């Protein structure tokens, strides 16, 4: 009986950090207010399945396949609103509060009136083993969580390929 309890507790303790790393990206109040919502949930098995459908002969497709290879999950929540700042801007803090001590701010762009972008990276030594991107724009709030090793430079260079359009935002800087 003691041995069983010991094994049970050990299993529980080893499972706890993994469970703790799970980031909650779902905010029902956002989905209720949003005019448009994009929700993408890709776990490891879905990523493996998707990887089989990227051609190994095409360099661009190979790049994506290599990028998703080794990832444990990609989670995206993006909400678009009808009017400016229709959502709680403190959501930034609620997402950041869930991240552990290994998460470091990679990029932090803050503005009281315009776009805010925070990129947090889960640093294990020199390696990035996870990424959270929180983009807060007047009419859009987006959270991306990439679970696993990822190259940010390669990620940003993907835009414009495979029919992914280049998005050039009109800036209205004073």
């Amino acid at each position, binding site marked *: 009986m003691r041995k069983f309890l010991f094994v049970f507790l050990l299993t529980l303790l080893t499972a706890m950090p993994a469970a703790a790393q799970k980031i909650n990206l779902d905010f029902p109040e956002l989905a209720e207010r949003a005019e448009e919502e994009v929700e993408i949930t890709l776990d490891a098995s*879905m*990523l493996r399945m*998707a990887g089989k459908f990227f051609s190994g002969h095409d360099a661009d497709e190979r790049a994506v396949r290599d990028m998703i290879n080794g990832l444990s999950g990609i989670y995206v929540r993006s909400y678009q609103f009808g009017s400016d700042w229709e959502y709680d801007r403190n959501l930034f803090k609620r997402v950041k509060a869930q991240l552990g001590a290994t998460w470091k701010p990679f990029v932090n*762009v803050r503005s009281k009136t315009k776009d805010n972008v925070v990129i947090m990276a889960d640093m294990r030594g020199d390696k990035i083993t996870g990424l959270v991107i929180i983009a807060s724009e007047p009419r859009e709030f987006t959270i991306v969580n990439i679970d696993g090793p990822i190259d940010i430079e390669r*990620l*940003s*260079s993907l*835009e414009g390929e495979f029919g992914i359009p280049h998005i050039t*935002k009109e800036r209205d800087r004073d």
Partner: protein
Amino acid sequence: MNLEHDLRRALRRESPAPGFANRVLERIERAPERNLMVQQPPRPVWWRAAAASATFALLLGGLATYKLVEYRRGVEAKEKVLAAMQIAGEKVRLAQQEVREIGSQH
């Protein structure tokens, strides 16, 4: 001598009990279905071939359906990956753009 005596005794002819033959004939008459089943002719070969073909076709159909479902799920997963990468890439570029703009202002 005892052995010879024992053998004779064991192998001696004995008459059945009275009415034995009649009882046997009655029992045969009482089980006509059983006799018919035994006498039924074997099923033709084409019937077995048809059953095997139907099973094979079912298996092939099941496999094809499974492959189709897996293909659709794979294509859907690929599209989701591309959409997720598009959004993630766009936000990283937005951050880079903001950082560049802030840098150029200073």
